[in-house]
């Protein structure tokens, strides 16, 4: 019983690693699997025993979807990036303004407006879609990328404001006061002191906006029905529903769709954790 391998500590480690491997396999295998599917020739996909390590590797699927076809992923990728970057920039700029006002300035109705913002964030998007569609159609914003930017910005601004608000609240007021004594204006102090200090908050809300925008599907489907303005989720859904399902091409498009969000999330992982937990955990 005194065997080295069965001390309580060792046993605990073994159990831990056992469950860790199962957990990681569950969360990561689907990624491995769509990448594998996307680089195999069509006939290999329907083999009775799945190829866990591909026998032949081909990039035909990627070449096919990026060329001009029925579903052009290159255009969708471009549209998605344009929308996502615009949404992110607009949300960050307006979010800084609003969050600063709520965190630092005293004004009538600030509590009411702040609660209204949180409520707006919680509204079911589907409840807004019919009026969005009708109003946007009247002003010519359906089937445009601008329309998507406006819609997504209005959905994301509350959460961005909330994240930045909780960040600004953690910045000691002395820091700002000392700058003000040195002659900086309120706006100057905001730009020169508060914004640089809360860079992690800005990064995290930026990534959250980007990820949301790259994946937004329901609203885009309501506003856009022209292939020219399809974003990636729309193009993918069209792949799945309209044509006979070709999993090689679909998984290749799926891989292209997740490259940017996944890369950003991995790079800025620490910041995102801080942003997502803002408000959820007491400091």
């Amino acid at each position, binding site marked *: 019983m005194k065997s080295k391998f069965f001390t309580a500590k060792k046993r605990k*480690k073994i159990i*831990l690693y056992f469950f860790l491997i199962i957990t*990681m396999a*569950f*969360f*990561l295998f689907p*990624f491995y*699997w*769509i990448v594998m599917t996307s680089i195999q020739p069509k006939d290999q*996909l*329907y*083999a009775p*025993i799945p190829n866990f390590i591909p026998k032949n590797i081909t990039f035909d699927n990627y070449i096919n979807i990026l060329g001009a076809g029925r579903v052009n992923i290159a255009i969708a990728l471009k549209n998605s990036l344009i929308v996502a970057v615009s949404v992110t920039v607009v949300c960050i700029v*307006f979010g800084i303004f*609003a969050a*600063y*006002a*709520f965190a630092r*300035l*005293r*004004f009538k109705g600030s509590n009411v407006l702040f609660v209204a*913002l*949180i409520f*707006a964030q919680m509204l*079911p*998007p*589907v*409840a*807004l*879609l*019919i*009026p969005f*569609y009708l109003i946007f159609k009247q002003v010519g914003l359906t089937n445009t990328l601008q329309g998507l930017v406006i*819609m997504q910005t*209005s959905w994301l*601004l509350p959460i961005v*404001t909330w994240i930045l608000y909780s960040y600004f609240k953690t910045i000691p007021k002395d820091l700002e006061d000392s700058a003000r004594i040195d002659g900086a*204006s309120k*706006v100057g102090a905001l730009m020169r002191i508060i914004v640089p200090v809360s860079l992690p908050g800005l990064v995290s809300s930026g990534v959250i906006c980007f990820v949301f925008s790259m*994946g937004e*599907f329901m609203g885009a*489907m309501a506003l856009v029905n022209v292939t020219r303005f399809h974003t990636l*989720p729309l193009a*993918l859904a069209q792949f799945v*529903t309209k044509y006979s399902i070709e*999993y090689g091409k679909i998984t290749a498009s799926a891989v292209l*769709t*997740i490259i940017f*969000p*996944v890369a950003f999330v*991995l790079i800025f*992982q620490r910041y*995102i*954790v801080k942003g*997502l*937990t803002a*408000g*959820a*955990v*007491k400091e």
Partner: protein
Amino acid sequence: MHHEAFIDLNLLSLEVYLPIFWSLFEVKRGIQRFFDFERSDAKLAAVLITPTLILVIGVVAYPLIYSFRMSFGDVEFANIKDYDFVGIFQYVKTFTDPEFIQAIQVSAKFVFSTVLVKLVLGTLIAVMLKEKFFGRSIARALIIIPWATPFVVVGIMWKWMLHSKVGVINFFLQRLGIIHDYIPFLSSKTFAIPCVVLADVWQGTPFFIIIILAGLQTIPEDLYEAAHMDGASGIKAFFTITLPLIRFPLFISTILGTIFAINSFDLFFVLTKGGPGKITTNATLFDWNNAFKFYHLSYASAISYVILMFSMLVTIGYVVLMRKTQVE
């Protein structure tokens, strides 16, 4: 007379222009005074929050009023111009429409099971990731990736893995001896909802893990040491120390998770399209179909408001909690 009046207004004299200069000066001073943010917080605040208010209140509140009005009418897409007030007819219809009642039941089943599984799984994995072990930071980083995966992609992944003929999940289950023949999971009445839950759990659990893990990290280690001295460790310590101290992150993730789940649409749309039959048509998908497939705009608006009421109830809980923690 006319002539003299004209002479009086000597356009070349500077004095004629003075009032104009003076009023321009007043306007400039007014603008300066308005933008003198050093004196008043309210003015600066007004300038700063206006864009957000226009976007959020304008693009959210106005549509809400618009569809509220619509829900009391009988508008179809074909007769969009004529609005007849029909009172609560559409709302009565929602509660007598067996399809909608079924959709509500689907939503309820889905919300309950997905939130429960995420909560249990999220807590267990968070506890695991709190331990010190080799590769911990890599594990913590990688586990967030599903959260960044768009739902349409999640749907495609699981549709492919759950494939009835060449799906890798069928393959595994057969190899492990759990099933004998391949199961057409997504077109099966028994397995369709659990499959959507499975895909949703895969995407959403990382969010729960992040929030709960952050809560776990605020618990001081000496609490466990003290408990260990008193003979409480392991599972007992988990229930007496850990759970009570992470109750707030658990609440928050439950409430947010519930709202996400009520609004869940993409997965249902991509994985099962509401089928087989109407087995996986949840309230949101039912609403969407009525609005953008059948063009019953008034009926769809009424359904929207019913869904909105449900999520409002959850939201009120959320806001109350948020305020409470700010006070504490």
